[in-house]
């Protein structure tokens, strides 16, 4: 129950903990156009949120949690234009 890294997608599943932050940064560094799928993410640690805010990857699905979804949507949507 964590981040599952596929070829071009990082799938957040269940509770995603602080330890994953480094791996996520690594993934996004290797795949600058990699996508983040948050549809199955029930909660994430602040550090992961920070990675998403800082790197603004393409978010292919928002988390079901409204608060988290709003925070992420507000930060990453401008980039969807270029996507």
């Amino acid at each position, binding site marked *: 129950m964590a981040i599952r890294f596929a070829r071009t997608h990082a799938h957040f599943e269940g509770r995603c903990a602080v330890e994953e932050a480094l791996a996520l940064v690594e993934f996004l560094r290797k795949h600058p156009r990699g996508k983040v799928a948050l549809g199955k993410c029930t909660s994430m640690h602040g550090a992961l949120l920070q990675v998403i805010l*800082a790197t603004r990857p393409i978010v292919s699905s928002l988390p079901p949690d409204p608060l988290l*979804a709003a925070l992420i949507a507000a930060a990453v949507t401008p980039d969807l234009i270029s996507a």
Partner: protein
Amino acid sequence: MNAVLLERFVQEARELLQTSASGLLTLERDPTDATAINEVFRAVHTLKGSSGLFDTPALTRLVHAGEDVLQQVRTGAMTLDSGVVDLLLDSLDQVGAFIDQLDRDGTLSGDADRIATHHAGALRARLAGDTEAVVAVIDAVLAPAPAEWLAGFPVAEREALLARARGGEAVLAVRYTPDEGCFYTGTDPLAAIRDVPDLLAVAVAPRAPWSATTDDFDPYRCNMVFTALTTASREAVEQAMTYELDAVELRTLADAAAPEAPPPPPHTPPAEPATLLGEAGRHIVRTQLRVIASGYDAVRLRSTGALIGNLLRSLRQDDLRDHWEIALAEAIAQEDCAPVAAFLARLDDAPVATAPAAPVVPLLAADPAPQSSAPPPPAATGEPRPASKTLKVDQGKIDLLMNLIGELVVQKNALPFLARRAEEVHGSREMGREIKEQFATLDRLTQEMQGAIMQIRMLPVAEVFERFPRLVRDIARRLDKQVELVMEGTDTAADKTIVEALGDPLLHIVRNSLDHGIEEPATRVAAGKPPVATLRLRAWQDNDCVVIEIADDGRGIDPARIRSVAVDKGVVTREQADALSDQEAINLIYRPGFSTAAEVSDLSGRGVGMDVVLSTVQKLGGRVSVSSQLGHGTVTRLSMPLSMAVTRIMVVDIGGSLYGIPIDHVVQTTRLDPTVIQRIKHREVFVLRDEVVPLIRMTALLGGQPAAVDPGRGEAVLVCRVEGRTIGLVIDDFREGMDVILKPMTGLLADVGGYCGTTLLGDGRVLLVLDLKELF
């Protein structure tokens, strides 16, 4: 137990505060006074340590800040000016107010966190090299939130919330700037901000702009600032964020003028027409509109579908989401984006009135009172603190009082002599009787006084028991054993000296039980016992003794093993060992140099254990006994005198002088017909209850002429038990028993052996009290 602990903490804290305050004043006059600095530091440090025992984070935080400042003063990193002294004194006053609250209510008031954070922030702001300290606001009325706080929120949402605030609802803005290293301390700022109750909306922004490249981005350095809006009360927010208060600022959302002004017209038009989606949502919708406008693409459409679906779910628009699903299905079926585009266009224009843009929050009953009321000024006003009912008195003063009462007792004992003189010398029986009556009253009063002063010196054994729960737990964990500690009779009281001296012997016994007595859980289960062992500490009063029993249900002591170990270690010979009964064998563990532990552990088994117990207890006039049942456990019983101060002695006449003998030793008094005294070689003996008892002529030992034996009555023999042996002391005559206060031999007499002290007789004569253990 906890209440007792708290009571003592309160007392101690007040003293420490007093010490620190006077020390600070000394320091203000002379900032270089190292003694004063150290004194203040130590007091505050102790206070911090003790406060950690209680669930009072506010108190601890404040004292901790004070300690940090003092530490810098101590190391010279900071000089103490009167500004800092003022701050410290203020903080100490606040701590004093907290202590009063604790004393009165047993807990701190709801705003304690805020007050503590404010004071702590003010103190930390003075710390050299710490410029980032946030001085929390303590203002009675929160300042309105600056506009930039709200910049992170979508316009529509912001306006909706502002409108709610203007409508009279108390909306708080919480600005949370987590520490940069917070990820390393296990803090999850996201979770922390989510803990704020009754959240309306949250926004997050970078503290410093995100770097353009990901190469030098450190995911474990927190660079976020959260702003949350909530309808919860200030106390509730502070409660929720209690561990992060240093990093939190609070503001109210309402305009400063709003509370006074009449409610604004209900239809304040928002700057931008409010919509269902809010700014971000609209952005998403518009972007997706553009995406699908480029033509039908099954993959893209699916992604759009998921995104909008989630957006609607996040807005809790379940009906709309159903519609969206239908439109999406239609579009896929027709391989045309038109139904989707039409839905999105409608969505873009949907008015806010259909549903609130933010998660629905139950309207709070307007209760701004707790927010606007000023926190009570520390200690200045407020009801007067009830005078403390406990006195702390130097032990020396009590001892002095005790001695004086002792003198009074002695003086009182002179009255019967006086009465006899009145009768015999002056021939006035009436005078004698009156003196005796006076004596009876005086006797009662002095006895009551003595009792009262004893009470002062009495302490509950809880004093020594207190440390065992923690100790047992720690040791048991280290040894991988499961032990339940049961304590009974903790309020049994005994003399302070005794209770305090009991600590070490008890420690040894408990350690021995845990180390050697109690088995590992697996062994216990194999032996048919529950895996969790029980260690029982019991105390009770038995006449003039206090008995403390340490019982475990471990493996017990094996007398055979004790025998063989004792022989191996040369404590006894094989023949002696074989002659011992099981109980006597068990008693061997009290011999010096005895330890059965196969390997020396750091817990017990250094070979100094039990004989130390025995000698300590005996020094205090107590007794130790061990009984053990192999496989069922061991019971160690310490029997201590209730009070050290008064010793009961028997006065005897030896060679024309009077001596005292502690009554503990006396087994019985008897008169021996000279014919029953037999001789074994040069020793005289007699037989008492089938036991051969050696006789010792005390006049030979102490000097003086033996009185002529009255043939009709026989020799006066005091049968005593010394170190487990029975001896008969041949004396001249028995006198009365009496309670005396023993004065140890001092000065030139200190080295004279054989006496445990002196006391005064009623007629002023000095009575020497014999120490039989030293004599024989």
